[in-house]
């Protein structure tokens, strides 16, 4: 990339205290004028060593930890962890439990994408309005979570073998009402942003990733799908009975920030579709199987994964027949999605770097764990 | 002159200010090491000339009273063009020679 005016290249720190790094994340960008010529990531400001802490707690006690990694999608994190442990211990889940898990995970995806879409538009400079609209809808979803499990952000709702509680009786009407109103909101956001030429020029052809690069860099989730790679764990490796629901995988065109954005918007629509089907076909019966409190899975290892809002959320658990995992490893999607950050930011301007970071949709709690 | 020097403002006062400003700009333009500094001196000299022109236009009897003011317009125009080109030169020299020090821009000196 040629420099128009020869200036001294100097280093600016985007973060750790910066309005658009979504937490304490830092990009050490070497810039020439406004153009980024090198970018280095500095992270770990929020490191809590969860993987080590989890080795000292029982399997059930570890569920709240998973809430606190990606604190914007705690239900999905719980689900991934529970799936891994169930796989390890060979525990089955009743149908109703599975359906509730699907409903909750999809609601969580909606809430998380609301946040992602809002924060992303905030990074492009839409002064707080889309983020406020998105928060309004997210609050409604969090109300449902609060109704179900008492918590809004760190839900701790999934259990090994099912879910913690059955749905309250107010849940169904509330959820149906919300599901009916959500497509309107998505259309509204589309009208506000996708039809906006300024938003288009800010995001199109910014942070372009080729599909080969995206696959090679181990990306997943909307960032990978934005490059035109149809990869969704819910379709490819269905869990919790996702195979019974009818939905599509949205993919992008050229792998730029705008494609990631429209993929997220379309995923919200598909989530609404899944929730509608799941609510219609919610089976009766128990919501959970009985699992001993001090679970001692047989010796072995298991890799359980779900399609989290940010990508493939994997849990690799090694058991030594003890009451707590011998090794507890999280595959954090937003951490690994940062692999390609340098490739996406170098050559663009500082403003583009911010947009790219917003389009990856990082959660620093998950990056640092 | 004498006491009236301070309370009556005539053509001499304006011309004196113009002359002093011109001399200052002259000294700056001759002695500064930085090319941009030299340019600033030149701008000051042009301003002094403008002031003088307008002073004559205001105080001197003439059959074309607007002439001085019109000339000031031309001088301002030329100054703008000159500043643009000179700064472009400075930037260009900096890019090629990594300095704007007029002492070190001595390609012709073998």
């Amino acid at each position, binding site marked *: 990339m040629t420099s128009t005016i020869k200036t001294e290249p*100097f280093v*600016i720190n985007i973060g750790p205290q*910066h*309005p*658009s790094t979504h937490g304490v994340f830092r990009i050490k960008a070497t810039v020439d004028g*406004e153009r980024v010529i090198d970018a280095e990531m500095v992270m770990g400001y929020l490191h809590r060593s969860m993987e080590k802490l989890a080795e000292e707690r029982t399997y059930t006690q570890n569920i709240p930890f998973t809430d606190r990694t990606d604190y914007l999608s705690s239900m999905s994190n719980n689900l991934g962890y529970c799936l891994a442990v169930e796989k390890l211990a060979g525990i089955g889940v009743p149908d109703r439990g599975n359906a509730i898990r699907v409903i909750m995970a999809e609601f969580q995806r909606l809430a998380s994408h609301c946040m992602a879409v809002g924060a992303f*538009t*905030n*990074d*492009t*400079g*839409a*002064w*707080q*309005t889309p983020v*406020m*609209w998105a928060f*309004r809808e997210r609050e409604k979803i969090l109300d449902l979570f609060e109704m179900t499990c008492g918590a809004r952000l760190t839900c701790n709702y999934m259990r090994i073998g099912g879910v913690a509680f059955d749905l309250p009786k107010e849940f169904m009407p509330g959820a149906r009402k919300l599901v009916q109103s959500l497509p309107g909101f998505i259309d509204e956001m*589309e009208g*506000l*942003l*996708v*039809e*906006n*030429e*300024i*938003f*288009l*020029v*800010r995001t*199109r052809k910014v942070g372009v990733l080729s*599909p*080969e690069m995206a*696959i090679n860099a181990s990306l997943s989730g909307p960032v990978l799908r934005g*490059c*035109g*790679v*149809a*990869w*969704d764990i819910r*379709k*490819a490796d269905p869990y919790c009975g996702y195979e019974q629901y009818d939905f*599509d*995988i*949205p*993919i*992008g*065109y050229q792998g730029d920030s705008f*494609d990631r954005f*429209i*993929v997220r*918007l*379309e995923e919200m629509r598909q989530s609404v579709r899944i929730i509608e089907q799941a609510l219609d076909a919610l089976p009766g019966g128990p919501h959970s199987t009985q699992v001993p409190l001090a679970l001692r899975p047989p010796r072995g290892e298991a890799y359980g994964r779900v399609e989290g809002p940010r990508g493939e959320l994997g849990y690799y658990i090694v058991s030594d027949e003890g009451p707590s995992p011998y090794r507890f490893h999280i595959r954090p999607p937003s951490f690994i999605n940062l692999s390609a950050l340098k490739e996406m930011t170098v050559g663009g*301007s*500082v*403003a*583009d770097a*911010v947009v790219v970071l917003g389009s990856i949709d990082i959660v620093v709690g998950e990056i640092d764990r | 002159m004498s006491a009236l020097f301070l309370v009556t403002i005539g053509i001499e006062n304006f011309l004196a200010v113009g002359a002093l400003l011109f001399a200052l700009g002259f000294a700056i333009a001759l002695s500064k090491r930085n090319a941009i500094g030299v340019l600033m001196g030149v701008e000051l000299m042009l301003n002094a000339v403008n002031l003088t022109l307008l002073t004559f236009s205001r105080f001197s009897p003439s059959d074309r009273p607007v002439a001085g003011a019109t000339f000031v317009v031309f001088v301002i125009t030329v100054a703008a063009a000159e500043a643009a080109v000179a700064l472009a030169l400075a930037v260009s020299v900096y890019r090629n020679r990594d300095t704007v020090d007029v002492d070190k821009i001595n390609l012709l000196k073998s």
Partner: protein
Amino acid sequence: MPLPILATNNWYDFRDLSNFSRLILENLDKILPHGIVYVVAVLLGFVASFLIFVLPSQLIVGVYGERKLIGRIQSRYGPNRVGPFGLLQPIADAVKLMQKESLMPLRGDVIVMNIAPLIFVAPCVLLFAVIPFGPRMIIGNIPSALIYFIAVSGLPVLAAFMAGWGSDNKYSLFGAMRIVAMSISYEVPLVLALLGVVLFTGTLSLQGMVFWQRDLNIWIAFAQPLSFAIYFIAVGAELNRTPTDIAEAESEIVAGYLTEYSGMKWGLFYGMDIGYALAASAFAATVFLGGWSFFGLDKWVPPWLIIVTKTQLFYMIFIWTRGTLPRLRVDQLMAFAWKFMLPIAIANLFVLATERMMWVRAFDADLKFVWVFVPINLLFTAGVVFAWARFLGYRPENTPRKARLVNQAGGFIPLGGAKGETRP
């Protein structure tokens, strides 16, 4: 042009507040030595304009109204705690700002950094001097008020640059460079747009422009829609309002040249930002929207009330865009100024000059025929904007706006569809 006296000369006639000030000045003239009264007059004018215009506008409408309106746009309440309906929120903010410690960066250029807010404030006050609030309510009715306005409104850029330089902060320097580059770029189409107005009205005086619009019962915004649009966009860029607020872009360069400021120094910048926006709105209301006249209504309604209302309504458009639009990137803004605005501004000027000639030659300079140009200019505006955008390669229909949908997981799916891709 003779001044049509709308209001009486009685001091209690609130339609013309200059009567009151003239009464005071005449009485003061008997007491004070001659000459001092001019100083008093200017001060009184500033105080009066501050009381009726700046203070209520700035505090109540500028700060409170902006936050309330932004709150409505963002589906939240806005200030509602301090005082009735949160009306005292601006005052509480000001008190808070005054209490704050004024932090200075250790390696900054302290003198430059401290002078910058002052230089930022002074031109804002000066700008209101030439805005006519009524047929006689104007502090400085100078013949070339338009150029005065352009000249003075170029000064705050220097203050912003000084602030960015003195802060010794890389983000501040970014903001300073951006604001300078942008204001230089947008000054050109702005002046070209105003030149069109001058071509039609034949005067540089703002008061003269108001009278022209009042006599013809037309607003220049209708007669020259393209000039108005260019002015609106360019002045938004100069004022750092969204979508062109790249100099203070908080998501990119934390707060631009204001990053290192705190306390009341920051407050001066913030308040005067609104002040400049109000001045530009008042200027737009005067030049493009008929000023204090409103199709004959100004005989009964106080003219100063009309222009204040117009100013606030115009300012609300700024708030609206701020609450709705994302921000452009700096190179896109530059390209927009030089590649889009400048050519269409020049084309606009050509068309307006031709119309002016036609007007003089064909219609014998009959001012009534200005209505002929309204539909022509509207058509021209739409045509030139559309055509030039197409010429520059703007193809909205080629932009996919919805994600592709596939029904089955797999690898990379190229464009054109394969493997179960369904169209949205």
